[in-house]
């Protein structure tokens, strides 16, 4: 499958010495729904800025639909990229319709379909700043979709929205992503998991892990959840004596193991022999936050 977006050993050092991206290598196949997951300052927006050709890499190269960003032919492929920017400010002196008309002219398209898809028809004469945050975000999404782009980049689409507004926006995002390559840049793990099949985890400008969620789960350390009537402290003490690393969680203990099925039985036997009344000992599926934490470690 062809590659829609490619970051090849991309480094970006800003004039003040800050490292935006550090030897980041990351690929998104055409048609994939990929997520760039990382906390604030991890380098997500720097990556988006590079796709916009607003920032030049200090090292490496960025390709969009096979064309080097800022190289010959970039303007043509840029018209096939739609971007929903992170928390955009609104123009107080333009209406929603005027802004979308500008976007449509720049893309060489018409805004009607995007306006209808985002349920914005009745707000076309409203000044942009008078729109509610949810509608402002939908307006920015409509501008990204006017040309029915092949690649859609969503930079923190729900950041700064009230939970209800963020929830209301989700179906529009899902619909917008359908049938095209989509990249979601977010710090929100639940959102990433809900909308994307692939993930790249960024930390301090470095891609520390990438793959499908299943691949990351397979790669992450399996765990056993152990609970005993004697309580968490006693279980932790017994496990420490066995030389095993464990962490308390919700009245139970999570033990990292190489193979939960093989080691689980041995562990259970030893805990029972130690006099613990174990009432739970089962392998657990790592949560998104565990995968992220592991990648960060």
């Amino acid at each position, binding site marked *: 499958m062809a590659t829609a977006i490619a970051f090849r050993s991309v480094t970006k050092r800003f*004039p003040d010495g800050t490292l935006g991206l550090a030897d980041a290598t990351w690929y998104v196949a055409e048609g994939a729904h990929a997520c760039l997951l990382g906390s604030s300052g991890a380098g997500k927006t720097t990556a988006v800025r590079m796709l*916009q*050709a607003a920032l030049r890499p200090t090292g490496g190269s960025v390709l969009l639909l096979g064309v080097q960003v*800022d190289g010959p032919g970039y303007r043509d492929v840029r018209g096939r990229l739609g971007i929903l920017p992170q928390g955009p*400010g609104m123009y107080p*002196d333009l209406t929603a319709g005027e802004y979308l008309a*500008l976007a449509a002219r*720049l*893309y060489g398209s018409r805004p009607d379909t995007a306006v209808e898809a985002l349920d914005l028809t009745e707000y076309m004469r409203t000044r942009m700043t008078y729109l509610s945050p949810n509608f402002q975000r939908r307006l*920015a999404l409509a501008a990204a979709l006017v040309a029915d782009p092949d690649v859609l980049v969503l930079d923190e689409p729900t950041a700064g929205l009230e939970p209800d507004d963020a929830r209301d926006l989700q179906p529009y995002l899902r619909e917008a992503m359908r049938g095209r390559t989509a990249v979601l840049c977010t710090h929100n793990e639940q959102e990433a998991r809900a909308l994307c099949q692939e993930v790249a985890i960024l930390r301090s400008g470095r891609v520390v892990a990438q793959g499908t969620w299943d691949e990351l789960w397979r790669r992450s350390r399996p765990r056993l959840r152990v609970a005993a009537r004697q309580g968490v402290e006693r279980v932790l003490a017994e496990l420490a004596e066995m030389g095993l690393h464990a962490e308390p969680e919700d009245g139970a203990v999570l033990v990292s193991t190489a193979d939960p099925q093989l080691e689980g039985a041995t562990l259970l036997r030893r805990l029972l022999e130690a006099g613990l009344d174990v009432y739970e000992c089962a392998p657990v599926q790592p949560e998104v936050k565990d995968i992220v934490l592991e990648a960060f470690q």
Partner: protein
Amino acid sequence: MIPVEVRLLFWKEVRQLTRNTAAMLSCLFMPAVLVVLAPVLALLASRTQPYRDLKVPPLTASLPGFDVVKHGQDYFLYVTLPFLFVMAALLTPVLAGIHTLIVERERRSLELLMALPVVVGDILAAKLAAILATAVATIVPMFLVDAVVIVPLTGAGTAYVVGALFLLVTTLVAGVSCSLVIALTARDLRSATSLGGMLAVPPLLLTGLCVVFVPGLGRFAVLGLLMLALGCGALYGGLRWLTTERYVS
């Protein structure tokens, strides 16, 4: 010749500037005071008896720039007016620049622009063109008022008007370049305002030197060329060393 992206963005900028009351007031008020009100009042004052009898001190009169200054009216034409024109033509684009370049970034609407299929160079080119167009549209008609008043009242002649217009236009170019440097350097509105004041110092210093050392109408030509060089230098330096990345990062 001009990319369609720049043309579309240019009209957006012009539309926004003309709709922005604060921007229009500051773009109109400053030149109105410096190009119309102050010169007309100064000219009228220079025709009163005390100024008519003004004598230039011998030491000052020996400076090349004062060879043409015989009366109060000459002082107004060859010393006061160049300063007023330079200040007006510098500050108008800088103020318009702060409204269109810095405010855009401060309120984060720049994100909306950058999300469109344009590059930062298109955005800056459109903004600078809009700033220049707005400044020309406000200052040049005001200058025509001066020309209509000055020529018949002083008998300064067409060469004076052409020279002053050349200075005005070249200083506008320098002002637009200054607003680019401000946009690439200042991080917020406050630092932009301070920087705008600082950047006005070298052109005013050059004006002072030309007024004192360049004789007759030559001062307009020399000063105009210096402003053009300053503007081109600022534009080249801004794009070459500061780079457009600074506007978005």
